[in-house]
């Protein structure tokens, strides 16, 4: 671990696992969408339309082929005319403008007909054996309709309008890994093109993005002989929308190995980059400077409104401040009047507490671009099995000692006040929507949340009541309620990172913090607008290369797109 004054990288759990810190993490080369697209570029995946039978009302069937070096996949989508009834971005909605499936292998007529029959049944439907992901998407009606009208009129849409949202359609559901009978991802294996965590879901999201652009162009052509296609620069700028909310807190708690593995990969990549010895004239200094300026411009052009998070204008100012300091280093080799051979470490230390956390994390994400091979290799190591195996031979004293050492934050949490247990986490019978409400408002709800603080405190109390040399096998007979947590704690013992340090039942807990960890940091979503401290809307694949560009290959940095000039 390298130490730079107060800041050390990889950062300790006590710093990194604070929800407020996790919420500030920014998209980076190790975010799953960015790593996936970079791999698609390296391997020149071939994505093409096989069928686009959609009528002027937007009703019809589409099929895409995705050829990777070793395997072909197909995306089968069904377009529906938009309905305003029962429409909502929430999972409880019943109006979807597109439903689709990502399958292994080329699409057959049988695959298409099975999907046509089963997808609308949703929870009562059954996927074919080659199905990886089922998905649903809705238009941003205003932006989609506006873009359609402009293209049909032979004009490009105005960026002032598009940049209010930055997408035409939004993901409203990605279900895989066994849901509805889809394939289990652990069975795919690491050598499978989509064998890494969340790869199949996020490839499906990329296809949603392509579909949204193809659909608007197709409908425009049906409306007018003089319709034009989207300008390639605009098409590249547009991503696909994404709405996320409370379900991701369940995900974070249920997949601590995956979260920890990804955080460890990101922190290692940052540490490697910060340790680079760089002379002022090193081209990598210039490269980073250009990336910082690009990120600042991206933030300045961001028109989204944020409730709980720092404004993009503030972040842009802070990123420019960091860039200016790097620029001074490039000029004279000095940071704060002192010569340094590791300027990135020095800058990380200098700005650790003096800029917005999002600006610091933007800098840290961008330094990863200076160690691309190592970062890509680290991203490929991200994994996390769900199963925990209990070790019944461990002694009570050993486990209690570990708990006090590793979970002091949870054991010290004051759970005596009503405010500390004010909320209950549950799922609705309708569409299994994850919800969080005041306990008195839903007294019938079964609490599905992980009460990590309360459960750990009760576990320690029961461990302390028996002799220290007692094996856990004997204690768990008397206290079966501790079985899962004991296995979880044991299974995560060697992980540097795993559990966010927060009591999710408390009124002080801000759900959106962990939603943003997942969306911005892990998924790589930009412009994550927050609503009511619990929902996020953001843009996936913002600026990502189009299928033509992927087919051509390349390694250029594509994120933080600048608005196309008109």
């Amino acid at each position: 671990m390298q130490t730079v004054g107060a800041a050390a990288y990889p950062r300790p759990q006590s710093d990194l696992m604070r929800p407020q810190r996790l919420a500030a993490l920014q998209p980076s080369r190790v975010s799953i969408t960015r790593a996936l697209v970079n791999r698609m570029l390296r391997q020149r995946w071939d994505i093409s339309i096989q069928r686009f039978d959609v009528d002027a009302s937007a009703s019809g069937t589409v099929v895409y082929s995705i050829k990777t070096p070793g395997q072909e996949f197909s995306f089968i989508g069904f377009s529906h005319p938009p309905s305003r009834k029962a429409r909502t971005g929430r999972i409880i909605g019943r109006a979807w403008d597109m439903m689709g499936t990502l399958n292994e292998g080329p699409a057959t007529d049988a695959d298409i007909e099975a999907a046509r029959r089963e997808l609308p049944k949703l929870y009562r439907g059954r996927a074919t054996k080659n199905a990886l992901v089922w998905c649903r998407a809705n238009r941003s009606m205003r932006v989609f309709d506006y873009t359609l009208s402009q293209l049909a009129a032979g004009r490009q849409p105005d960026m002032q309008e598009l940049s209010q949202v930055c997408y035409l359609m939004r993901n409203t559901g990605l279900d895989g890994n066994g849901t509805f009978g889809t394939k289990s991802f652990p069975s795919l294996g690491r050598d499978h093109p989509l064998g890494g965590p969340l790869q199949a879901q996020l490839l499906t999201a990329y296809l949603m993005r392509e579909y949204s652009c193809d659909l608007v162009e197709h409908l425009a052509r049906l409306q007018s002989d003089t319709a034009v296609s989207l300008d390639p620069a605009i098409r590249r700028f547009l991503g696909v929308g994404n709405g996320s909310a409370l379900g991701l807190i369940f995900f974070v708690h249920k997949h601590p190995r995956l979260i920890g593995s990804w955080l460890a990969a990101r922190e290692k990549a940052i540490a490697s980059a910060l340790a680079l010895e760089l002379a002022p004239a090193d081209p990598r200094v210039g490269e980073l400077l250009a990336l910082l300026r690009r990120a600042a411009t991206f933030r300045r052009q961001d028109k989204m409104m944020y409730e709980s998070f720092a404004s993009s204008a503030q972040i842009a100012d802070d990123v420019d401040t960091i860039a200016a300091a790097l620029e001074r280093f490039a000029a004279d080799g000095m940071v704060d009047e002192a010569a340094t051979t590791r300027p990135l470490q020095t800058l990380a230390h200098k700005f650790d507490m003096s800029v917005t956390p999002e600006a610091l994390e933007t800098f840290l994400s961008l330094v990863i671009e200076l160690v691309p091979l190592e970062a890509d290799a680290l991203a490929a190591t991200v994994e996390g099995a769900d199963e925990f195996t209990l070790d019944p031979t461990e002694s009570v004293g050993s486990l209690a000692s570990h708990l006090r050492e590793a979970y002091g934050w949870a054991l010290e949490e004051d759970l005596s006040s009503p405010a500390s247990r004010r909320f209950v986490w549950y799922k609705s019978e309708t569409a299994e929507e994850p919800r969080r409400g005041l306990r008195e408002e839903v007294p019938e709800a079964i609490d599905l949340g992980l009460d990590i603080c309360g459960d750990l405190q009760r576990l320690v109390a029961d461990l302390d009541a028996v002799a220290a040399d007692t094996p856990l096998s004997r204690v768990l007979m008397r206290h079966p309620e501790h079985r899962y947590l004991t296995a979880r704690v044991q299974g995560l013992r060697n992980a540097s990172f795993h559990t966010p340090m927060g009591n999710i039942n408390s009124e002080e807990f801000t759900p959106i913090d962990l939603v943003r960890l997942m969306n911005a940091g892990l998924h790589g979503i930009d412009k994550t607008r927050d609503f009511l401290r619990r929902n996020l809307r953001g843009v996936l694949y913002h600026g990502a290369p189009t299928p033509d560009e992927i087919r051509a290959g390349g390694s250029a940095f594509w994120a933080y797109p600048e608005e196309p000039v008109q």
Partner: protein
Amino acid sequence: MNAATETTLRVMPREMRMMSERILSLTGLPKGFVLAETDIIMLSQGLGLGGFALIEDRFDALKLADPAAITIASEDGPVLRLDAAGQHAWVAIPSLLDLAGELVARFGTAEITVANVVDESELQVAAEYGRRRGLRIALDANDGHLLLATPLRLAGDLATDEPVLWSLLTDGTPIAADLWWRIYERAQKALTPDSVVSRRHAGPLIVNDDGTVIGRRDNDDETDISFLAAPDGGRETERQTS
């Protein structure tokens, strides 16, 4: 047998784990114990034992399940007698495996008799589930209550270490459609009925009783406010559009 019962579904581990977790959360079993039970029921199904049909049959009894009632009746070195106190075999298996693991670590072998257990044939699940812990477990051919455990060297490869789980992950398991949908319906009871108040517990907007809305409207989802304010109306819409 009618047409519905002749139809089988291919059900995957994620679904089996979710359904058994939800159903068992409706019993008196503590949450921290339920999460250790889901793979036991899944493996029971995968091994062709009672599985989900048995969870239906035993649901009322499982409501009264009390894993803490299980005790050690006698113990002499690697030989142990477990009194399951009338609990179901699925409820006894976690403690059985813990004790087997402890004794194997201490003595190199374990010989455990499980007395007073319901559905003793389900103890066969312990043989498969024990593999994950590095235990080779055999049931005595003449006495289904007696289990012999020795160390099992794990290869680090799921297909080799846990062949039943691997088979389930790769191919799923066939389950009669009508049984599965009954299981699904029962599991739904662990979820909370929808209501206007409950709908305020998620989403980017909150619709008040007077129809006013809390929250910004720049969420681009063109939400049908009447749908959020009237779950019953929403279900009606669902039926009309399906």
